[in-house]
């Protein structure tokens, strides 16, 4: 099944949360990547029928999603908020989901779903006694109980311990390989890379990039990098670096050098050689803009060009 967003925007008062996004999500695993506050949840809620687009359309196989409860026959939703009834046991929670879907044998479906997320052992405990990761898994089980062809997960790996995280990643990958349409949001590139074939990057409400992880990784690495260098002779090193095309700008300050590397690979290869040939000892080399925000903001300016 295919989710299609066509020129979708969503604003709250004067604040634009999602800005003119056109996106198609098909079978396989798609990762929705972006920093916090980029509008990922807003976008996901519009795909899940819990928010109306201010403009544009959101459809599932051509049918409008908003105000259409029939879509939930095909959609499973794992919300980010811990929206679970604490007074129910894991078993009761997943079973209620199966019954609400009017499945022919809700008990079998619930047992199967709980087995998928490895929650059989704790299924008879109340959900309020669960850890965050266990709650997350029980929510996934409740969303999978009717074997939906579309699965939407909002920050599903948050709060999980590494083992649980790997297990859920495997599960998501398997479901995607089986031909289901899966979309999950995350602000961690490594997470998205490990699970998703297709990555959609959302920054400040805008669709900044789209592609497989190699494409996204390449676009994130092939950008001007800013380095901070301290050495035994900054001025001599600066002169040697600027002579090569891999450096766009070098500025000499009290605390050392700021080097703008235009060709990342060549620069990292070049620096030690240049330093050795010039007889300069490099004491410190650190990236000045490696945080995710600056990577993302580069993607935006890149896509705007």
């Amino acid at each position, binding site marked *: 099944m295919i989710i299609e967003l066509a020129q979708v925007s969503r604003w*709250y008062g004067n604040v634009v*949360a999602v800005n003119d996004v056109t996106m198609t999500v098909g079978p396989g695993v798609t990762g929705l990547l972006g920093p*916090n*506050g*980029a*509008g*990922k*949840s*807003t976008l996901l*809620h519009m795909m*899940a*029928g*819990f*928010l*109306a687009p201010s403009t544009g359309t959101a459809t599932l196989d051509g049918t409008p999603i*908003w*105000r259409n*409860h*029939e*879509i*939930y*026959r095909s*959609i499973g*939703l794992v*919300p*980010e*908020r*811990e*929206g*679970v*009834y604490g*007074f*129910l046991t894991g078993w009761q*929670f997943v079973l*209620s*989901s199966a*019954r*609400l*879907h*009017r499945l022919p044998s809700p008990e079998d479906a619930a047992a199967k779903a709980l087995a998928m997320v490895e929650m059989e052992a704790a299924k008879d405990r109340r959900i309020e006694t669960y850890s965050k990761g266990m709650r997350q898994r029980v929510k996934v089980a*409740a*969303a999978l109980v009717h074997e939906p062809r579309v699965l939407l997960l*909002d920050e599903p790996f948050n709060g999980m311990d590494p083992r649980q995280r790997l297990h859920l990643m495997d599960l998501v990958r398997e479901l995607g390989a089986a031909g289901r349409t899966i979309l999950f949001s995350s602000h961690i590139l490594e997470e998205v890379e490990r699970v998703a074939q297709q990555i959609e990057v959302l920054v400040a409400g805008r669709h900044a990039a789209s592609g497989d992880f190699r494409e996204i990784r390449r676009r994130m690495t092939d950008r001007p990098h800013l380095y901070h260098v301290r050495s035994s002779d900054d001025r001599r090193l600066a002169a040697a670096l600027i002579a090569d095309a891999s450096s766009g700008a070098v500025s000499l300050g009290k605390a050392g050098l700021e080097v703008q590397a235009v060709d990342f690979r060549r620069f990292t290869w070049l620096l030690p050689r240049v330093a050795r040939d010039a007889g300069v000892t490099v004491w410190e080399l650190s990236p000045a803009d490696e945080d995710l925000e600056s990577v993302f903001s580069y993607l935006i300016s890149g896509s705007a060009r």
Partner: protein
Amino acid sequence: MNSVVAGITYRAVLGRRRVLLLILLPAVLIGLAILLRAVGSTDERAAVTLMQVYAIGTMLPLLGLIAGTGTIAPEIDDGTIIHLLSKPISRPVIATTKFAVAASLLAVFAAVPTFVAGYILLRGEAGIAAGFALGSLVGGVAYAAVFLLLGVITRHAVTVGIIYAVVWENLVGGYVPGARNFSIQQWAQTFAAEISTSDFFKATVSMGFAVPAVVIVTVGAVVWAGQRLRSLSLTGDE
């Protein structure tokens, strides 16, 4: 109506601490009736006053507020409602089920104790026990619908509900006779007066007005709540 939704709703309301209020308020009513009986003041006037002022005038709107908003507002607040809404069940069915749960809670925690208190005081005299029980039941149904709607349309359902019950029904209704026409409490008394033959109280609103008013308000509120639930929006934490 959906039995799974009803089951979860009953557990949510009765499992929370608010169930204590659901029990406490009618316990006070029955306690007062026992007390009045013990001191021998079981005349009709005292019984009617207790029924009008406490059973219908205080307990019923408060219980209505607890049951009506309690079946849906906490779930919308903490997001658990998504579990019910992300299912192929029409939203009006969910609203109707929640309304039925609230109304049934009011029958058990308001109408039945009202009858018991009346019976303790007067037995079957002048149809007071039966009359106020009916009034309480009908008023409870209307309150359930209205407060359920409040729970869906505003995050301040309890505040708005208390303002309606205290300011509009009791304060404005007490001074402005015309306002009584638009008061669930007065409609409840109309139904009570229909059965009761007591000389100590007369309804201010006619049956000809109260019956359609109760029907229109109840059906209208439940339908509106269902429609509002269809376009319930979740805003992310971002």
